[in-house]
Structure formats: C-alpha cells, structure tokens
C-alpha cells in the first residue's frame, strides 16, 4: 500500500520536474506564456507542489488530535516556511523570465528542489498516516 502511493507520488513529482525540461506538446503562443515551455513547466511544478503540500497541511489541520506530535510539528514547520519557499521560487522564476540565462535557470531549479523536498516530506506523512492501516 505504502509503496504503491509512494510510486504514484514520485511519478507525480518526477513528472512535474520533467515538465520543466519537457518537449511534450506546444504552447499556443498567444497564451500568457508566449510559447515559453520552461516557464510553463516551472509553473506546473510550483502549482502541483502547492496542491500536495496543501493537502498535507489541511489533513494535519483536520486530524491534529489523532496524529503523532512529530507530524503536527512538521505541519507547523511547513505552515511557517511554505509561503517563503513559494515566494522565493516565484521570484527566481520571474528573474528567469526577465533574463533567461543558465545561471538564473539554475537558481530557479534550486528553488524548485526546495519545493520538491517539501512535497516529498508531505507525501511521506500522508502515506504514513492518511491511509488505513492493515
């Protein structure tokens, strides 16, 4: 059970990461991304990371009395830091948009790695505590 969701989750994460480099599909150039697939893929990673992290924070909020202290502590740490993580990722994303150099891309990827780490931690707790035990 845990392995299954872990696999699904990591496929989700890796898929999100791959989207920043993807060659799948094309963007309608009249859209807000103006054909820039790197920016589009970056925003997919940022948005999907938020969804999973939010799922964990919401789960912890709704079930705090039944969760081990370390899970509640992790949720509180994520609550405290997540806005800054996303703010940083978006700032570096905007910097890359203005000046798409390899250095700016590298900084942006580092910020996305921070989000991916938070996603992995959130998924770990969701897998361990959200699903029924056997």
């Amino acid at each position, binding site marked *: 059970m845990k392995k299954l969701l872990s696999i699904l989750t990591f496929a989700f994460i890796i898929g999100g990461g791959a989207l920043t480099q993807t060659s799948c*599909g094309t963007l309608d150039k009249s859209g807000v991304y103006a054909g820039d697939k790197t920016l589009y893929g970056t925003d997919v990673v940022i948005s999907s990371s938020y969804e999973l992290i939010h799922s964990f924070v919401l789960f912890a909020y709704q079930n705090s009395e039944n969760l081990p202290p370390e899970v509640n502590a992790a949720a509180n740490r994520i609550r405290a830091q997540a806005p800054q993580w996303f703010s940083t990722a978006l700032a570096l994303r905007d910097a890359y948009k203005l000046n798409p150099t390899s250095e700016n891309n590298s900084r942006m990827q580092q910020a996305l790695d921070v989000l991916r780490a938070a996603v992995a931690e959130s998924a770990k707790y969701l897998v361990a505590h959200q699903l029924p035990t056997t």
Partner: protein
Amino acid sequence: MEAAAIIAAIEAAITIAEKLAPIIQAAVSKGEISVEVQAALDARVAALRPGGTAFAGAEWKQQPTPPAV
C-alpha cells in the same frame, strides 16, 4: 496488501491528480496547450504570490500541538 488499502491509495493519488488534471493533461499531451489552460495555470500561480489567497485558510495558521496520542 489488502484490496481496501490499495483502493484508498489510488483514490488519494486520484484526488490530487484531479485538481490539476486539465493542466497536467495538457502539459503531457503532444497537442497544443490552449490559451485557456495557460491562463488557468497562471491564475493558480498568481494566488501563490505574496498577498495571494493560497495561504489565507485556517489550515495555514500555526496550530497548537496536541498531546501525544
């Protein structure tokens, strides 16, 4: 591994995927990603910016840690 547990795991993954289905589906497709899908993603990301609504919910407030269960 019990069948119920497998189903629960799949349902959890589907719940997450459903939230992003149009965006992810478009992103991994070989077709053209429409103006509408791009705008939807842009709006989602805008909510994550400082002053946005993404972190406004009660679930984002620091919570007291209950005693160990």
